[in-house]
């Protein structure tokens, strides 16, 4: 009997030890301020664009997530050249606040991912995804940046793109900063009398791309599209050790005068 009682007490010990008072909110927070963002569709000829969303969310006080999603399709018209593009640009002002007076410095991390599909039909047409760029700046000084390279396919090539960069980090003090983010998707097709399928650059979840615009036998049939787009996550946390950016490693090398 004693053994069993001893066992129960020992078993209960870990939970007693962990019964700490509930954690308070984050010690550093982000306050979103003015935003200037735009998605510009450009269409000429036999084209289709879809999506065009710039979504800024704050899932937690210390995190913001920015998504850009869009689609550009250009098809083969008998008498017109076709070009389509969706151009995204965002400027988001925000303020970093230290809720805990003991915190003197914060670590900001920037992380990006880019997922989508590029399709062309044999013979002609091209589809591209332009550079996807996000930069954290203070005034005119770029503190931290991520940039994903562009991709282009032509003449029957197809490409599934899934890129991730970061997290890149930098140490900052409280104050006002701004995030600049750009992204472009585009497609083009010359005029032709051939029964060519359209070229498409798809970086948006369904239903941005009407399936009737692409081939029934498209090479990425059944692909999951819910995460398509260019998504940047900016997160802030207290820099408890007081490490400067030099200790954090990556960012200062990327920092430069804009």
């Amino acid at each position: 009997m004693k053994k069993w009682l001893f066992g129960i007490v020992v078993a209960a010990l870990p939970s007693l030890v962990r019964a700490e008072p509930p954690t308070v909110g984050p010690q550093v927070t982000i306050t979103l301020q003015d935003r200037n963002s735009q998605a510009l569709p450009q269409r000429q000829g036999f084209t289709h664009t879809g999506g065009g969303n710039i979504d800024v969310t704050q899932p937690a006080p210390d995190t913001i997530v920015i998504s850009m999603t869009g689609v550009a399709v250009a098809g083969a018209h008998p008498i017109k050249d076709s070009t389509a593009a969706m151009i995204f640009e965002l400027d988001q002002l925000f303020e970093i606040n230290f809720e805990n007076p003991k915190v003197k410095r914060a670590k900001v991390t920037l992380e990006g991912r880019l997922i989508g599909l590029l399709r062309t039909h044999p013979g002609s047409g091209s589809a591209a995804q332009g550079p996807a760029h996000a930069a954290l700046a203070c005034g005119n000084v770029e503190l931290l940046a991520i940039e994903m390279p562009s991709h282009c396919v032509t003449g029957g090539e197809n490409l599934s793109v899934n890129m991730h960069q970061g997290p890149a980090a930098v140490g900052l003090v409280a104050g006002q900063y701004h995030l600049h983010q750009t992204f472009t998707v585009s497609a083009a097709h010359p005029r032709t009398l051939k029964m060519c399928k359209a070229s498409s650059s798809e970086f948006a979840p369904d239903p941005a791309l009407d399936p009737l615009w692409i081939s029934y036998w498209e090479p990425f049939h059944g692909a999951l599209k819910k995460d398509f787009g260019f998504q940047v996550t900016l997160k802030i946390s207290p820099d408890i050790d007081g490490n400067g950016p030099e200790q954090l490693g990556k960012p200062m090398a990327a920092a430069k005068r804009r």
Partner: protein
Amino acid sequence: MVQPLLLSLALSLGQAEPGAAEAQSEPPAAEEAPTSSALAPAPPDRWLLMRYLQGTWPGWLLDSNRLQISGWTDMSFTASTTGQNQLPMGFNYAANQFLLQQNWLRFERSVVTSGTTEPTFGFRSDTILPGNDYRFTVARGLFSDQLTANNGQPNLYGIDPIQFYAEAYIPTIGRGLDIKIGRIFCQYGVEANDAPSNALLSHAYTFIYDPFTHAGIMGTLKLTDAWSFQAGLMLGNDIFIDPASSPYGMGSVKWAPPDGRNSVLFNVILGSGRFNVAQNFHNPEIFDLVYTHLFNPRLHYSFESLYGFTTNVPGIGFANWFGVLNYLTYDFAPRLSGTTRLEFFDDVQGQRTGFSGLYTAITAGISFKPRRGIIIRPEVRYDVNSSALPFENRPGLFTAATDCILRW
């Protein structure tokens, strides 16, 4: 000592992870959004041609205007106990011979029947282009000279614009009013003119020797989820604009509850009912009842009974005929089903088939779809007439046939 330690270890593993509190401050994972395919209505069937055009400029022109081009090719071979032809068993009537029964071209603009309160307009054009089924379905006054073009006999193959109509759908009248103007399939019976709509390759006498199409205007009103009515004013049966045409009315009432277990369709075609001696044209009156029952998701039954008559038939006077049909279909698999058909057709005076007496026909066949656009329908069938020798001077006929439908 070991037991308590083991117990404490087991209980400790059941505790929350130390990092659980921190993990809650992570951004919540995005909720699984319903996919667009779960919300969107089921897309219409797209066959080979439309799939090929999808993503091209002509395909976009068609799709953006709700236009579709499709069709099929139906080829059959019938092995038979007769030497030349199996008439009065129609359609696949050529004994021991390959037939291109239907080369069907469909061009249509469908109406929108859900998701809108606005009227929508469409059309459909169905053409046998060519096929030997034209011989049975062609309407007088519309390419009917093909029936005498071969030294007074029909051409083996011919064309027939078997159905063409303009359509309007008004969703705000009742549960939806559909109006069609043009040449329209007759609305009664279990079997249909278009080959893919039938479970069996061969047709019943009740289908072969009664009207196939009307030309005129027809309205279909859905009053409730279960009840719908049809009424139409026609130029006659199997006739287009021709001196022999005469005013005819058609009407039907259908009860089909949404559970789909049972349905009843009663249809009438009423007109002069008199044989037009001057124009040598047959004007029958038709009464038809169809009942369907779903025993379970795999086994379904259909019953049809038809009565028709005509007066003033030269040499006969009053002519009438009856048909009773039973179909039992079992779905062995999504791509394989089996159907049996038992038919009794009494051509009392022999005005329809040329031979009086009771025809009894039993058919068993399967429908196999090895690919989505391919249907293969082998069957065996035995026909017998109780009082005449209609099949090359024999009372009975045994056939083993198969066809292949390629949908494009």
